[in-house]
């Protein structure tokens, strides 16, 4: 049976009929016509638009299964690419032999690191290669990219690529990595690749006048974004030498700049299309495979698509920084925080990515939303030969919040104070100064504490 003769009727669905909109509705719906249960469709028709529970037209498409994510896009002649992953955490690449892969039927092109015109990128330090050319820094590093007529052939071709590694010393623990004797991940640079300090008042004096001192060490784990949609991209050139990239990247302006840099192209020759992305959470804020796909597309003269496997999402995309957090607070017997000293060590993975930003935010936020006259926070981010840590929802805030709030409860317990009362005693007010000396506005910490407590039914127990 020829299934080309059976065309789905869905293309003919009249979406307008489904929207059920009466265009003669007045702009403001008269009060008598308000339904007992607000209909969210009506919310889109109100002319005070702010504050409406408006439904999303893109969700209409999602619910129908009609949204085209990158993996749903097929271009004529499109090839499928896969990337060979190093599988070793620290090594020198002695030799890459792609000839057997290139000879396979169905394999159209192979690209390796040294073919990338500028093989480095990164939002702060450009320490990350598109494809590892002579050094591997973590097991998920890509060392070669293959484009073939089917994904299956591309997968098989990966196994035919021969890479000879000379293993090098590696370090996996950030505290270890801070020591002088530790192997240098990006030699000759120190493993401590960024640091930050926030200092106000004098913590030693503050501790000296405190009634009680509390200390604690807290640590968090490496976490992956797990967007349901994996990283995906399509690269395509037109006959005028213009490159189009469809990508799951949430920052297409930056992505275009990075493509221009890595491929040495003027920006006017690059078009970055950010499709509807199936979840980002910070993990899709920089390029990864796109320049390699662009070169594969250029070599073959055909569009090239690649979608990360779920395994690559873990091994080869950014993750949340594990942080080791040391807290020391001096408090009065009433529970007012007089001084707080904090030290943060962030596991910075193999490349910087968004670590400098994470470091900065974690450092600034680490004392918590509390009025403290004497603060000293020192934060460091350290290279290790593990998956690169980058931007993930909160940039260090969830980690330090876990620490400062656990610490606060330890203080409350130690003083016999109620956990809500002690926070209300210390929390910012409108016009309070942050630890960086900024005068804060639109401050509603106490409102959120009281609101949540009322909703919860929190009865004080001190």
């Amino acid at each position, binding site marked *: 049976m020829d299934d080309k003769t059976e065309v789905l009727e869905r293309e003919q669905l009249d979406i307008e009929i489904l929207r059920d909109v009466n265009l003669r509705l007045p702009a403001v719906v008269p009060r008598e016509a308000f339904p007992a249960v607000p209909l969210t469709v009506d919310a889109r028709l*109100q002319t005070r638009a702010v504050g409406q529970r408006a439904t*999303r037209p893109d969700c209409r498409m999602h619910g129908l299964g009609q949204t085209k994510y990158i993996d749903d896009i097929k271009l004529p002649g499109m090839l499928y690419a896969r990337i060979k992953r190093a599988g070793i955490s620290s090594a020198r690449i002695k030799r890459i032999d792609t000839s057997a892969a290139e000879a396979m039927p169905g394999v159209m092109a192979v690209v390796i690191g040294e073919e990338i015109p500028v093989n480095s990128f990164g939002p702060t330090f450009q320490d990350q290669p598109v494809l590892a050319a002579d050094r591997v820094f973590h097991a998920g590093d890509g060392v070669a990219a293959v484009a073939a007529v089917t994904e299956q052939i591309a997968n098989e071709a990966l196994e035919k690529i021969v890479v000879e590694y000379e293993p090098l010393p590696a370090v996996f623990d950030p505290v270890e990595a801070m020591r002088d004797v530790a192997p240098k991940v990006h030699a000759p640079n120190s493993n401590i690749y960024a640091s930050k300090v926030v200092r106000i008042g004098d913590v030693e004096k503050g501790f000296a006048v405190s009634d009680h001192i509390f200390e604690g060490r*807290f640590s968090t784990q490496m976490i992956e974004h797990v967007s349901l949609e994996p990283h995906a991209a399509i690269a395509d050139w037109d006959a005028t030498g213009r490159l189009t990239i469809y990508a799951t990247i949430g920052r297409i302006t930056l992505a275009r700049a990075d493509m221009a840099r890595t491929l040495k192209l003027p920006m006017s020759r690059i078009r970055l299309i950010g499709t509807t992305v199936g979840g980002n959470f910070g993990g899709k804020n920089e390029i990864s495979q796109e320049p390699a796909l662009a070169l594969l597309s250029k070599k073959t003269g055909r569009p090239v698509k690649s979608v990360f496997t779920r395994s690559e999402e873990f091994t080869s995309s950014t993750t949340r920084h594990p942080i080791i957090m040391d807290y020391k607070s001096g408090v009065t017997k009433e529970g007012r925080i007089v001084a707080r000293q904090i030290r943060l060590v962030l596991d910075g993975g193999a490349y910087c990515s968004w670590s400098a930003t994470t470091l900065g935010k974690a450092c600034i936020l680490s004392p918590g939303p509390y009025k403290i006259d004497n603060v000293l926070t020192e934060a460091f981010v350290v290279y290790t030969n593990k998956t690169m840590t980058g931007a993930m929802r909160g940039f260090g805030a969830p980690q330090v919040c876990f620490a400062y709030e656990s610490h606060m409860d330890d203080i409350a317990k130690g003083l016999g104070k109620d956990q809500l009362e002690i926070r209300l005693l210390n929390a910012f007010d409108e016009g309070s100064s942050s630890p960086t000396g900024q005068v804060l506005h639109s401050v509603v910490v106490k409102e959120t504490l009281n*609101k949540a407590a009322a909703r919860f039914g929190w009865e004080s127990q001190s």
Partner: protein
Amino acid sequence: MKRRGRGIGCMWYPIGFTVDANPSAATVKVNEDGTATVLTGTVETGQGALTVLGQIAAEALGIATDDVHVVSGDTDVTPMDTGAIASRTTYVTGNAIYLAAEAAKAILFEAAAPMLGVKPSQLEAKDRMIQVKNFPQRAVTIGEVAFRSQVVLGQPAIGSATWNPPTVAMDPETGQGKPFATYVYATQIAEVDVDDETGEVEVLRICAAHDCGTAINPMLVEGQVEGGISMGVGMALQEEMLFDANGRIVNPSLTNYIMPTSLDMPEIHVDIVQGFDPTGPFGAKGVGEPTAVPTAAAILNAIHDAVGVRITALPATAEKVLAAIKAKKGALKQIPR
């Protein structure tokens, strides 16, 4: 035996980049019938940014959300945007869109003023009309004005704008400065049951009170809170990437990387605290990341309240909690008489 506990997590979180410029640019085009198209370089990554940005433009132009179409995510067509990151879209891109809409509206007011016999500064846009402030009886539809402006007067109502949060660089020695233009605040309170024989933690309910400035779309704010809490539950109790002695990930799959399913979610009560911020579009700030910040803290504090053990290394798996409970019992037994 199951022991109940409650814990508070309270937090603050900034909107936008740390000190560094992170501008957004936007263009608002009013069509000849009074509906509008918005061009933004941001990318929809699921949070509903395009809907919220459309609501901001609609509010500024006095039209309905449904009258606005938002085009995004194409460097050939849409202006630059620093991107969907750092919870900045509603605040920074929103401000750019607000300013662009105001610029388009100014062109409309120039066209409408002679139609209504007043100065442009006496006009406002409301309910799909351009009307005189405090004398709304004198009004004309936005469609008529837009048509006249573009087709008759030759002045299409297109407005473009950029916006960047004002910051002050931080001193390298002391960190003193104004790294962000605004912050949001929130509290989550968790109630848990801890089984003191297995170490299993069940999160029963979380009451979340979140500040987002003005809530442009409360339904989407709730969605962010609920989604953020699910990430927080995972961070608190389940998720961990594990490495072997050679630095290779042991669990690169969803079979062995445990994250929350529908069975792991508590009852969630969301209260939006509207901390109006005059520097944001219609008082809005942001909400995307803050929702994932205090959850683990609240849950771990609740575990502490329930069974008196302080887990200091996340995740608080059942094994860890049980080991801590046993250690505590053991320590108590060892107190010399």
